[in-house]
């Protein structure tokens, strides 16, 4: 069962890579401009051997993990508050909706001016960008709670906070978890993008900057493969967590088996 799923997934990924290779081989994409996928794969496999790469990788992972954690710890409770207190939600909405579309690219130079650490700037950028999916999904999750379930607890005399903790939160948890999965990849994207934009001592993006200096598009693409792979692994872990924690959700509501 698990084996079959892994095999299918591998076939899917292989299909993507083969398509990319075919695009290069058939001349659809000029190999002078973009290296062939086979060449990129070779570089990707060789990357860990480059002594500069592993520290870069670890640095990216650290910023990602810290940023995601801070975002979850901040945005989910905020989402719970805003999802529950209609007044607070209404009052903060203009501000939130004003801030949401402002790209971190515009903010990074400004934050850099105020914060004397590149690492912290990156983390701020990650938190800023990945907080939104968490916030929005948490708020929508709360809207989806069955009123009969809430009424049940209320009728036993539980207060708002208890209803929130014992009904709304578990019931919205799958929704929130989807938000976490979204935020996880946003955090990856922003970490690497920030490294690309702002540089720094280390990080996959910094490695890509260096690779760009030597016109090594193959290395850049190899780095992209690594980012994708990391995102994939992170997601597998999160999905596993989700399956384990919310078995009731999958079993109680899944469609065809």
């Amino acid at each position: 069962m698990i084996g079959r799923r892994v095999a299918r997934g591998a076939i899917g990924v292989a299909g993507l890579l083969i398509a990319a290779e075919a695009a290069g081989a058939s001349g659809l994409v000029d190999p002078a401009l973009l290296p062939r996928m086979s060449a990129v794969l070779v570089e990707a496999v060789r990357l860990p051997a480059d002594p500069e790469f592993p520290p870069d990788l670890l640095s990216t992972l650290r910023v990602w993990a810290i940023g995601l954690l801070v975002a979850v710890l901040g945005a989910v409770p905020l989402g719970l508050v805003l999802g529950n207190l209609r007044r607070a939600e209404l009052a903060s909405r203009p501000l939130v909706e004003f801030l949401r579309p402002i790209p971190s690219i515009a903010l990074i130079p400004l934050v850099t001016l105020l914060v004397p650490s590149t690492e912290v700037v990156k983390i701020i950028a990650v938190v800023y960008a990945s907080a939104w999916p968490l916030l929005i999904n948490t708020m929508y999750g709360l809207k989806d709670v069955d009123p009969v379930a809430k009424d049940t607890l209320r009728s036993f005399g539980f207060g708002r906070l208890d209803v929130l903790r014992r009904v709304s939160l578990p019931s919205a948890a799958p929704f929130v978890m989807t938000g976490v999965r979204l935020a996880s990849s946003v955090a990856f994207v922003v970490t690497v993008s920030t490294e690309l934009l702002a540089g720094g001592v280390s990080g996959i993006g910094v490695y890509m900057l260096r690779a760009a200096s030597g016109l090594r598009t193959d290395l850049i693409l190899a780095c992209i493969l690594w980012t994708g792979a990391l995102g994939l692994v992170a997601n597998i872990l999160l999905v596993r967590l989700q399956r384990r924690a919310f078995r009731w959700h999958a079993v109680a509501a899944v469609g065809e088996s």
Partner: protein
Amino acid sequence: MLDVVNLAHTYGHGPAAHRALDGIDLKVAEGELVCVVGPSGCGKSTLLRSIAGLIRPTEGHIRIRDAAVSDRMGDLAVVFQDYSRSLFPWLTVGDNVALPLRRRGMDRGARRSAAAEALEEVGLAGAAAKYPWELSGGMQQRVAIARALAYRPSLLLMDEPFGSVDAQTREDLEDLVLKVREHHRMTVLLITHDIDESVYLGDRVVVLTGSPARVAGELPVSLPFPRDQIATRELPAFVHLRAEVGRLVRARDRRD
């Protein structure tokens, strides 16, 4: 104990508004078991939800032990008509029953054993570790009943609590409610569609009219206690009362 005065409730506004309750007066004494019958859609659940403080009545007021409904809450339990949605799918059956007991200040062990006992009483001894969605409809309904009984509320509200169980189980549950009420001096308000049941269980039967619900009539049930499924139902008084309630129900337009 419970004092409902001139209660009215209207759902929605404007042209789509629907008046569900209209000038309901109802008094329930401490320890009394009152059954409410009335046509489908008349407003029984609305009445019950108002008493539980879940919806705010448009007019009139409700007092429980002389306190307005909204400020109190906590010493009552409700078995919802929509029992399957009132169970939490992320908790096991045992945890579902044990959850409200937190309000009773019981520790973990006490909660667990109280839940196990209540489940045993409704005939679900082995089900504590299962999830609600692993149970049949009737079993879910019994879990909801167990949860309410384990809570030992002073006011118990039940909305068609035995609709999904077989005849034999139903009789057992009826007797269970009588027993628990006796032991713990609960006040019970029970909505049912079964006229026999209302007479068998109740100290008094309240009949509601069709939508919007008004009180069509009340009937004290002066059958002796303890009641017995076979003996009580054979009493001429029972047969008479049952016919009486049936007449009250039928006397009114059933539908709006």
